[in-house]
């Protein structure tokens, strides 16, 4: 170690050998021909926190697994040296590795449901892990499990320790995994996307919990995340990764406020900000604003005064509130699932109107009923009560003018049919039989969404996530719709791709005069695309109004809670918000 390069420089000033918790030098990981990690070096001092930030495929999760030697026996080739809590991971025997895993360095995974064994009680699983590393009785291990579950904030831990994972909510499961990590009091916690599968309010709770635990135990944290906001909330240092290499590494405040590298700047620019107004859309809408203005005169002349005053107040892109022609209207929508005693209403008495040229954002956490609402608007689900009116006429079933773009661009395209065939489906459904015309129209659509006409005969697996979502959009456009309901259209995409797809939707809306319903859980994305916003909770709309009003001056306590939970890119703001959340929780 004396002759080694001191990669952790800044933090390793005392010169003692014991200060460094993680020391990674020239790490490379190869899977077959793919070099997932390429010459990466970093260090982590005891008690410090580092985030590995990057988009999908950047190799960040691979690094996390390599720290525990999890690539052993999988056929991956790992080069360079890895030292974690005094163990040389590359040279260690199987037994030495097992003593490291869980005891000195514990890992928390992304999906807390699939990361726990569905067949055993949660307390038993924690006790099992504890007994691997300590020679204690079953009873003592079980008591320890209850202890740590209590510590991570599981209420009634004695009873709940006997529950199986499916009886826990997502947030509770992640707490349980963190409890498992805490059981042996490790020096290092490796958290691989620990909050990605969670709702934003739950995410804030988990990040706060990690923060508190770090304060109390002094353990180091290596956080792997794609979400720059999550990193800003949780760590001292950040390392931006791309294509398996380090792009930029430094204190979190410096990297986020004054990024030195172009890629970091691009990445940060693509992150949607919940506290920023719709800047991107403004430029384009100056021309588009004229379109609804015409209809104002035609349809509701009296209401034009509203937009006039808005203009006078210097809000040129004010939403066409109460002005444009009502395209889609829902009244008293209700949808129940289940039978008998188990009946519950996923959507309960929701009414909304959507006007020409407008984007309505529907935002809510999982289980809020937003997807069910979206499907009823399109006609894929029949409402239990209430009705959907399109262009003033009550509508039953699907209508070609109302189309949908789905969340998962992988599973919403048939993998065995070419993308051209998928896009042509709505045309054929409409009775178009002329192959030449179909091909011509599909080519036009492909080009319209930024792909090439030659992609007609390719299959979905040949495209990236963002491209597949473009195909999904092209398919929705094929029927010449006036309304497109987008259900989480960008939540499966990286931020830079996300920004591109959002920009495409905005462009199409302006050019084709589309009405967009944008259903999403991400508050920042929704703000960036919406004129008006409806916040859903437990099947009801708790608050709705012009986007800026709702975001800048939320009225409903739930909306306030949601907005307070969104991670901030500014570590100082994040710290203030955390303090505020603690006060709220204490009160």
């Amino acid at each position: 170690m004396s002759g080694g390069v001191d990669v952790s420089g800044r933090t390793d000033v005392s010169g003692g050998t014991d200060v460094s918790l993680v020391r990674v030098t020239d790490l490379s990981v190869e899977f077959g021909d793919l070099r997932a990690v390429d010459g990466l070096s970093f260090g982590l001092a005891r008690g410090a926190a580092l985030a590995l930030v990057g988009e999908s495929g950047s190799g960040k999760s691979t690094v996390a697994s390599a720290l525990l030697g999890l690539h052993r026996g999988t056929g991956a080739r790992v080069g360079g040296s890895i030292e974690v809590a005094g163990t040389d991971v590359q040279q260690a025997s199987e037994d030495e590795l097992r003593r490291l895993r869980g005891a000195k360095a514990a890992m928390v995974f992304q999906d807390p449901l699939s990361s726990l064994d569905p067949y055993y009680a949660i307390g038993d699983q924690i006790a099992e892990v504890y007994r691997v590393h300590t020679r204690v009785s079953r009873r003592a291990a079980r008591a320890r499990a209850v202890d740590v579950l209590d510590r991570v904030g599981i209420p009634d831990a004695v009873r709940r320790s006997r529950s199986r994972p499916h009886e826990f909510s997502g947030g509770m499961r992640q707490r349980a995994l963190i409890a498992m990590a805490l059981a042996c009091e490790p020096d290092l916690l490796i958290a691989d996307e620990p909050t990605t599968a969670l709702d934003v309010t739950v995410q804030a709770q988990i990040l706060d919990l990690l923060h508190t635990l770090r304060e109390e135990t002094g353990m180091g944290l290596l956080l792997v995340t794609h979400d720059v906001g999550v990193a800003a909330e949780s760590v001292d240092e950040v390392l931006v990764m791309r294509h398996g290499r380090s792009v930029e590494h430094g204190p979190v405040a410096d990297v986020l406020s004054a990024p030195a590298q172009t890629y970091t700047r691009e990445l940060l620019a693509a992150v949607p900000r919940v506290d920023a107004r719709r800047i991107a859309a403004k430029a384009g809408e100056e021309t588009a604003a004229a379109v609804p203005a015409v209809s104002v005169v035609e349809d509701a002349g009296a209401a034009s005064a509203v937009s006039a005053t808005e203009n006078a107040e210097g809000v040129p892109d004010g939403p066409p509130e109460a002005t444009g022609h009502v395209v889609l209207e829902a009244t008293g929508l209700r949808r129940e699932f289940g039978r008998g005693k188990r009946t519950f209403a996923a959507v309960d008495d929701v009414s909304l109107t959507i006007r020409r040229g407008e984007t309505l954002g529907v935002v809510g956490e999982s289980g809020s009923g937003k997807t069910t609402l979206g499907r009823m608007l399109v006609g894929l689900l029949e409402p239990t009560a209430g009705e959907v009116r399109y262009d003033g006429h009550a509508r039953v079933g699907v209508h070609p003018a109302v189309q949908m773009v789905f969340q998962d661009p992988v599973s919403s395209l048939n993998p065995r049919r070419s993308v051209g065939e998928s896009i042509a489906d709505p045309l054929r459904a409409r009775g178009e039989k002329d192959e030449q015309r179909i091909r011509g129209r599909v080519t036009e659509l492909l080009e319209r969404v930024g792909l090439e006409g030659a992609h007609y005969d390719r299959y979905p697996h040949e495209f990236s996530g963002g491209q597949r979502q473009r195909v999904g959009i092209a398919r929705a456009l094929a029927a010449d719709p006036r309304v497109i309901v987008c259900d989480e259209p960008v939540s499966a995409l990286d931020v830079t791709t996300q920004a591109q797809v959002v920009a495409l939707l905005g462009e199409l809306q302006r050019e084709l005069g589309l009405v967009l319903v944008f259903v999403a859980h991400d508050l920042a994305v929704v703000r960036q695309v919406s004129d008006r916003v409806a916040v859903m909770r437990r099947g009801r709309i708790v608050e709705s109004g012009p986007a800026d009003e709702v975001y800048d001056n939320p009225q409903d306590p739930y909306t306030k809670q949601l907005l307070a939970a969104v991670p901030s890119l500014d570590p100082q703001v994040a710290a203030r918000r955390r303090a505020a959340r603690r006060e709220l929780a204490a009160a």
Partner: protein
Amino acid sequence: MSGFSGFLVRRAIGTVVTLLAISVIVYVVFYATPGNVAQITCGPRCSPEQVHQVAQQLRLDDPLYVRYWHFLEGLVAGQDYSTGTSVEHCPAPCLGLSYQSDRQVMDIILTKLPVSLSLVLGAMVLWLVLGVGTGVLSAWRRGRFTERLLTALTLAGWATPVFVIGLVLMIVVCGELQLLPFPQYVKFTDDPEQWAWNLLLPWLSLALIEAAAFARLTRASMLETLAEDHIRTFRAYGVAERSIVGRHALRGALAPVIALNANNVGSAIGGAVLTETLFGLPGIGQELVHAVNVVDLPVVVGMVLVIGFFVVLANAVADVLYAVADRRVVLT
């Protein structure tokens, strides 16, 4: 426990409906079968008058629904049969009398069923232990020599017909080595020890083949479970591979094994004809084949119903086991 008793009631109703449907199908199939049943039953040397008498006695000239109704009556209320000289009472549930022997079908079943149950349940224990054990071992030792050897053996076991294994076992064990006498069925109630010794070879030959299927299924299902996320969690926490395979992966891999076992036990009760014939075991399978050959309708219906009952029962037990193994399963 209201959920469980509800499950039992629903299953019982389902079983009755299934069995009634099976009996209707058997009646229709046999009604449509060509050939003079009365002639076959009476024998080749019967005069036309005798054949006519038999036909009347067996009510063969009645329309199908009358005969079926008669059968249902017997099931619910019992039946009196005239056997020419005397009248025999057949108490409910009465499955009728055999055309061939005039014995009550219920009696025949009660003598044959213990033999089949002895054979199948004993063999089941063996095939589960051998099959699941082999499967677990090859999943644990995946990619190594042990696994390749086991895979080759199970494939060979699967491909070998039961009469080959059975014959080889008999010739070697009973003939050459004279370790065991040639098998002969002894009732469990008469002498449990002799019962087990005599059934050892039939058990082995039936189990070896079934075990091969179980080994392959267990291995495949374990490998699938081993690729799941929660297995990665326990690896990342330093749990030894032995416990990961034996505790976490096995539990996750059990569901398809339970399903296959239910099917195999159910069908082997009536379907282990080869094994029964080879070892001279007077079981359900043998009797059924004989009854079909002589168009002995009451016996066929009775046997088919018994087999159907055990298939349904085995599947109900499997459903309960699913729920025990995996708490997420709700019995309905």
